[in-house]
């Protein structure tokens, strides 16, 4: 494998990160305060959660990850520690796959 695909991926991935940084810095304080850009992350994280849970390639699926997310949601709601949430989700999915 030649190096150019690696370097092309690296350069463009970094360029995208810097693009967001530069655009953010160009916005004046009033604009960014009024538009409270933090809210943009909320729907993106929500999308990430459902995509990592309910999709396999381009298909929508319900598998061991679904009950794992339900367990995680209950624990988050009960204000369980972060590590407990992560371990409980892994254990739920692993056990269900072991049984299945």
């Amino acid at each position: 494998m030649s190096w150019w695909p690696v370097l092309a991926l690296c350069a463009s991935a970094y360029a995208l990160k810097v693009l967001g940084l530069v655009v953010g810095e160009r916005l004046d304080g009033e604009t960014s305060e009024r538009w409270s850009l933090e809210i943009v992350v909320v729907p993106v994280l929500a999308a990430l959660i459902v995509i990592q849970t309910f999709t396999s390639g381009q298909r929508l699926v319900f598998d061991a990850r679904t009950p794992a997310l339900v367990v995680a949601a209950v624990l988050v709601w009960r204000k369980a520690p972060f590590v407990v949430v992560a371990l409980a989700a892994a254990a739920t999915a692993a056990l269900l796959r072991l049984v299945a």
Partner: protein
Amino acid sequence: MSNDPIFRNALSIGVATAVYAVSFGVLSVAAGFSVPQTCVMSLVCFTGASQLTFVSVIAAGGGVAGALPPALLLAGRNALYALSLKGVLSGSAPKRALRAQVVVDETTAMAHAQPTVAAKRRAFDLTAVCLFTAWNVGTLVGAVAGRGLGNPRDYGLDAVFPAVFLALLAPQLRGPDAMRAAVAGALIALALVPIAPAGVPIIAASLGAVPVLLASTRRRRAPLGHAPEVGR
């Protein structure tokens, strides 16, 4: 430091990430990349979903022309993240350039889950250090050791990431505006998954924030509330 919730959370994210990094290393070498090429990808690209997609498409015979567009679409959300982290990505120009490199899902989610700018910066930096170390050590181990290390799915590790992101999203969901934006984002993404290329649904989900942004320009007030701490 073990009593520091931010550090503990960053560390647990690092552990789960390391296992995924091992699978990336294995996949990348299997796809025909050398060990140095695999490690350079993790050091310099440092955006997991893009790297995994890139080497998977090449392994499946899709070629570089087939692999680059989906990888870049997946990396596109990092631009949105960097934009949202205005005020967190601080410091001198070299420091900002360095911090830009570590703008990914985990660092952004950890930063935004904190109540103050100082805590956001600290969470971002600590998560970045844990994540960068884990991702690169894991990649090297996977690239060198190769197959035979088992599938992360067998340990349920694929379920860890949505759980972790949920724990990080929860403190940002104070108030009906944020809740509406979250539900809209999730619905947009699920609707687009069957029809749009990978990466597009997540970027398009950001449109879920548009009604809130428009409403906030009318009201001129910040719609986001914060819980004092994550996971405690």
